[in-house]
């Protein structure tokens, strides 16, 4: 029996670049079921006219001056990288936009 949330899980896994095994998909879809059901009340609340709260603070216009700060030495930047070539991060061959 396929869960009604299975397509959503599959779509999200693709969007989130998470390879998920088929048997995991079913389990995750069941989790979706339970979690979203537990959260259902949220969707039934009347929120008309309420301004969204995007952060805990009402801050605005926090900016910095356009003044250079030192960049990292390249060795330090590249040290944690899984694969490095010639001062670049190296990844499997791809064409632009094809990821």
């Amino acid at each position, binding site marked *: 029996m396929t869960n009604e949330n299975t397509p959503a899980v599959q779509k999200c896994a693709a*969007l989130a670049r998470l390879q998920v095994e088929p048997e995991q998909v079913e389990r995750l879809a069941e989790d979706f079921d339970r979690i979203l059901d537990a959260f259902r009340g949220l969707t039934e609340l009347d929120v008309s006219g309420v301004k969204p709260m995007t952060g805990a603070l009402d801050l605005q216009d926090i900016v*910095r*001056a*356009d003044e250079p700060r030192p960049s990292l030495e390249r060795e330090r930047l590249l040290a944690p990288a899984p*694969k490095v*070539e010639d*001062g670049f*991060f190296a990844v499997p061959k791809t064409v632009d936009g094809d990821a």
Partner: protein
Amino acid sequence: MTRVISKQSGQTWFPVIGLEVHCQLRTRTKLFCGCANEFGAEPNTQVCPVCSGQPGALPVMNSRALELALRAAVALDCDVAPWSKFDRKNYFYCDLPKGYQISQFDRPYCTGGGIELASGKRIALTRIHLEDDAGKAIHDRGPDTLVDLNRAGIPLIESVTEPDLTNADEAFEYLTRLKEIFQYIGASDCDMEKGSLRCDVNISVRLEGEELRTKVELKNLNSFRNVKAAIDYEIQRQIEAWENPDETAHPVQETRLYDTNRGVTRTMRAKEDAHDYRYFPDPDLPELHVSAEQLERIRRELPELPAARRARYAEQFELSEYDASVLASEREVADYFELAVRGSGRAKETANWITNELLSARNERGPETKLEELGVSAEALAEMIELIAAGTLSKSAGRKVLAAMIETGKRAGVLVVELGLEQVQDTGQLEEWCRAALVGQDKAIADIRDGQQKAIGALIGQVMKASAGKADPAKAREILLRFVQEHG
């Protein structure tokens, strides 16, 4: 409105074109960190924890980027939003360190505005928004794709037009005007070769009275000329595709790359089920507010824009449309011109010296050269023009002096003496040269007497030659004419 008549069917098609232009802002540092915003550094040397997306690093907005973006908005007559915010655009790619681009989705910092073309047609803007640039993925060096993050985080403004354009020429002109303006106000270098201006084209064709048909996005356009060529090609391609009786050959919604070598566009990727970027407000960045006072200040500080200058030069200085346009299209040249005119009081001469001599000298040194690098200040040029007007220097000697000014950085007055180019006004000396020029010229003398005035040109030429260009040609002419009359 441009119509394209199909060669095959005779049907009339109407192209519908919109442009999305990304310009890197000319700040010293990146949009959200203090790394240098400079082109051409060694790969991955202008990168810090923030722009490489190290876990835990946070963005802080560059105030200068907002200032430049606002100048662009004011210059293009946009409506600046009293508040705007940053949103995350989520997608995965190897050149996108954070896994999202910080952009503006439903509250861009400005909307509306536009640019007027020479024809009077106005290309309307939908919006401009601020965002950070991605890094660079290099695919043609070895078996792996290589990633350089120097570009990651550089501030961009993306301006999006309404689908108001109907042909390649309009696109070319729009881009030219946009570039002029952004350069004028110091917002962006708009150098396509360095990638500081990038243009994507949305294009479709339709028949009279129809709704819009399937839209294709063109990418990889690395010069204005390619934009033009790609649009021309794509219009024809789409018309032919629509007129193909086989429906599977009809245009599909996709992104196509322009192949510069072959002059064609080809499929890059089909738009699967359109990307789902899951935009949401970036919780790391507070809202941006722009006050009326701030906008007023920016408006006040904005330079006179190229279109206004062109019109003023034509009217105030009675310059030709061409000269006005050449002088006004770059702010440095225009400012230089105006300063020189203020010194010499002679607009037409000044325009000629700049367009004929200085700009070609500059161009010879390469496209990067600035006018000021020639070392001839506007005051110095004005002085030289005055020397000519006063008769101290001939026009041809003027060219030599100007060349020497560029070479040595000395002022015209000094060089005239050093080079011995001061025009000779002394009548005795002039008479001597004229007398010599008339020797053996009986035919010319007779012609002049017969009223054939142009024969005198050759004689003046002789005098100039003999005097090494120092003779005042007007005076030489007077003397020659007197001698010819006296001769007989």
